[in-house]
């Protein structure tokens, strides 16, 4: 352990602001990247599902219309 106390750890030998700025910004950017990648995966599944439902409904409507025309 390089630091005697918690405040020394935060202070980082006077470079605290720069060290924590670096670690903080990196953590935030990586968290955003992971979150957006995961939500992008969910989003594409939702988009494909809703497009499929729309296509299925259109097909059903078409089939119904064709049946009505026959009878």
């Amino acid at each position, binding site marked *: *352990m*390089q*630091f005697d106390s918690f405040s020394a*750890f935060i202070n*980082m*030998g*006077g*470079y605290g602001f*720069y*060290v924590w*700025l*670096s*670690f903080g*910004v*990196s953590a935030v*950017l*990586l968290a*955003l*990247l*992971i979150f*957006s*990648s*995961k939500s*992008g*995966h969910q989003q*594409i*599944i939702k988009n*494909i*599902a809703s*497009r*499929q439902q729309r296509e299925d409904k259109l097909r059903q409507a078409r089939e119904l219309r064709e049946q009505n025309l026959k009878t």
Partner: protein
Amino acid sequence: MWKWLHPYANPEVSYHFAGKLLPWLSALAALFLSIGLVWALLFAPADYQQGDSFRIFYIHVPAASLSMGIYVGMAIAAFSSLVWQLKLANASAAAMAPIGATFTAIALITGAAWGKPMWGTWWIWDARLTSELILLFLYMGVIALHSAFEDKDLAGKAAGILTLVGVVNIPIIKYSVEWWNTLHQGSTVSKMGKPSMSIDMLWPFLFCFIGFALLVSVIICIRFRTEILARNSIRPWVRDLVNSHVAYNTTFKEHM
């Protein structure tokens, strides 16, 4: 070798393979990163000249070398996609671009936060910093081109050409500290032969580096799967997969 590789050219197989890798890679990334970062922040010795500001090194250097490594990977994928029309290569190139951009941004920001106390300035237009900034712009251009066309294959071609042209920048970044007089210090870790670094600093660095590299592979897997779905949305296997997902979600909500 081609026989062995052939099934992985199938999007469905690749999708499930990447999904199987994900939990293992995530666990390893968490393990290496937590050991590496705690070691770097608490136990690694302070530099005799730079004091505790040296701890920025454990993020800055892995991020910077990964930003270049991801670009090379993306260029190889773009090349395979342009020459052999491999759709999966196109998908993986599209998956890598935002990750590379994030690591480039991290390298630039941590570099600025390290430059301020050490050099007395956040930014200077020297060769290493400028070429790394150009790398960020290249990544942004590639991301923009991938999303600029409705047709993913056409978008992949445009982005691939930009990627391949931009490869010129990689050796410029790598050797900028040797070719020009710069404020940026030369490499400490990858010097030919022995690294000029104390062993107490090298070990936490290696853990951080491997941890970040594993994290990159985790995010590549996630985004690669998304890109595969986007490119194969009308295939029967994607329909089945999406339907089972929707069915699972509705039963889950009913039970809530």
